[in-house]
């Protein structure tokens, strides 16, 4: 067999690939374990330095260095977490409801509404940033949690995924619950929702990462001190990217910014892969 001949080739290629992914993260981790002057002199070795714990303590509680004055990473992580959770819960909730309406009811305008939702796939927040900001500003929601999250909640992807899933639910189940005399909402809660657990888990992973990693929208909507998310906070910390800044703190905050979403992907890999591949189908 051909495969037998090249038994080691795939492993070698894959390991090189893994190394290319892991190496930058390793260097960042090393960077978060030295002091500012070692890094600024360009003398950083490839091994972990002696300031690991103190750097992370400082980053979490009070990331104030010689040239950096940032919001504590704990606060920023909490902001990111709340934002991500609000987006996830909001997206899943409204998409479940609208997919339920579109699949299990017959009513005038059904397809029209479905298309209205579908078409939002074509309007990423980036291209409608300025008018959306104007709307949020008119509603007095600039620099508020609602202004940060609500415009990101509508999701065609989640609605489409739930719709696909609902279409596979056997008619017998619906009949059965109608015979039981259960109303529509009862059916939704006690039959549909439990059957959608896997899809909810899959979407949770994808949407959590989407939410945690949001950039442009929080950048323009949050201005208050202490309200920025960690992704925004870290970019504000580097400023103009000079050599003489507190890189050890920046790298510690960067590690803190990437740990939660990476952990979720690794721990919930099964749902993540399923969700990703299903959602894009």
């Amino acid at each position, binding site marked *: 067999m051909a495969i037998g001949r090249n038994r080691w080739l795939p492993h070698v290629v894959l390991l090189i690939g893994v190394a290319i992914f892991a190496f930058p993260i390793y260097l960042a981790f090393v960077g978060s374990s030295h002091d500012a002057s070692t890094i600024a002199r360009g003398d950083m070795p490839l091994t972990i330095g002696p300031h690991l714990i103190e750097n992370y303590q400082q980053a979490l509680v009070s990331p104030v260095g010689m040239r950096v004055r940032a919001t504590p990473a704990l606060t920023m992580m909490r902001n990111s977490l709340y934002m991500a959770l609000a987006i996830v819960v909001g997206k899943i909730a409204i998409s479940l409801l609208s997919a339920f309406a579109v699949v299990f009811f017959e009513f005038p305008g059904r397809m029209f509404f479905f298309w209205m939702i579908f078409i939002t796939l074509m309007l990423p927040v*980036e291209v409608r940033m300025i008018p959306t900001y104007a709307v949020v500003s008119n509603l007095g929601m600039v620099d508020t949690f609602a202004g940060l999250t609500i415009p990101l909640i509508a999701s065609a992807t989640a609605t489409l995924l739930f719709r696909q899933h609902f279409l596979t639910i056997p008619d017998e189940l619906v009949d059965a619950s109608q015979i039981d005399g259960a109303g529509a909402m009862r059916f939704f809660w006690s039959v549909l929702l439990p059957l959608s657990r896997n899809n909810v888990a899959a979407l949770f992973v994808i949407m959590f990462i989407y939410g945690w990693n949001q950039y442009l929208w929080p950048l323009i909507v949050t201005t208050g001190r202490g309200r920025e998310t960690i992704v925004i906070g870290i970019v504000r910390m580097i400023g103009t990217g000079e050599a003489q800044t507190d890189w050890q703190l920046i790298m510690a905050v960067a590690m803190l910014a990437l740990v939660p979403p990476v952990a979720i992907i690794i721990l919930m890999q099964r749902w993540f892969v399923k969700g990703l*591949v299903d959602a894009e189908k």
Partner: protein
Amino acid sequence: MRRRTIFRNKLLPYLLLTPQLAITIIFFFYPAAQALYQSMLFEDPFGLRTQFVWFENFQTVLSSPLYLEAARVTLVFSVAVTLGAMAPALLLAVMADQVLRGATGYRTLIVWPYAIAPAVAAVLMLFIFHPTIGQIGQGLRALGVPWDYRIHGGQALFLVIFVSAWKQVSYNFLFFLAGLQSIPKTIVEAAAIDGASPTRRFWRVIFPLLSPTTFFLLVVNIIYAFFDTFGVIHAQTQGGPGRATTTLMYRLYRDGWVNLDLGGSSAQSVLLMAAVIGLTVIQFRYIERRVHY
């Protein structure tokens, strides 16, 4: 597609749709309509004086050499990011598909960069590629490369492409791997019995079978390169040096947000929307086709 069994209720479905429709209308359709309207206005930042100018803003934007330059940068950037993110992903997926044991382990080791925000990846890479303190930056200089992305436009463009592609490989890898694993083994074995070499087998048999996945990823990666990479450029180069990394998206942000040119930036928004709609229509037509075969 339609279900046989349907709940009968006049009001309830509308109530169920209300939250999503409300958000969609307030934060999608109304702003999009506003952008369309604004793109035909000539206005001061405060909105005190407004003239309706029809398509003049589009004319100005499209005839501006700077906009065309940004379009060219976007083209180079998107093609490079797409290729740079897809080719290694395909290679890794083919290799992972051949590994009989440990494929899941490798998958775990390769998927996680998907979770890193583009802006955070940009900050990490800035640290590594920094000309005076970064490990790779120093290494390049030691080799005699005059590495300083803050001065050399080509290097800056390379850096933002590299970071954007680096982060996207894992996403493509997952889809390629799923695609490869869905190809029936019998087809591959039949080709092997015919005596075709592994390389030939791949290009003649496997790659064509992967084409739906490849095509889908092509569209997704182009959209990624258009929009999601804004964080990388904003954090690393701010569109410079010169205009070397000013893409259409970055130009839109700058004109609208920093230069407060509302009419011109709205016209740019509308043009970008048209581009996304075009891409999505292509993608949707393809989905339709795939549903049928």
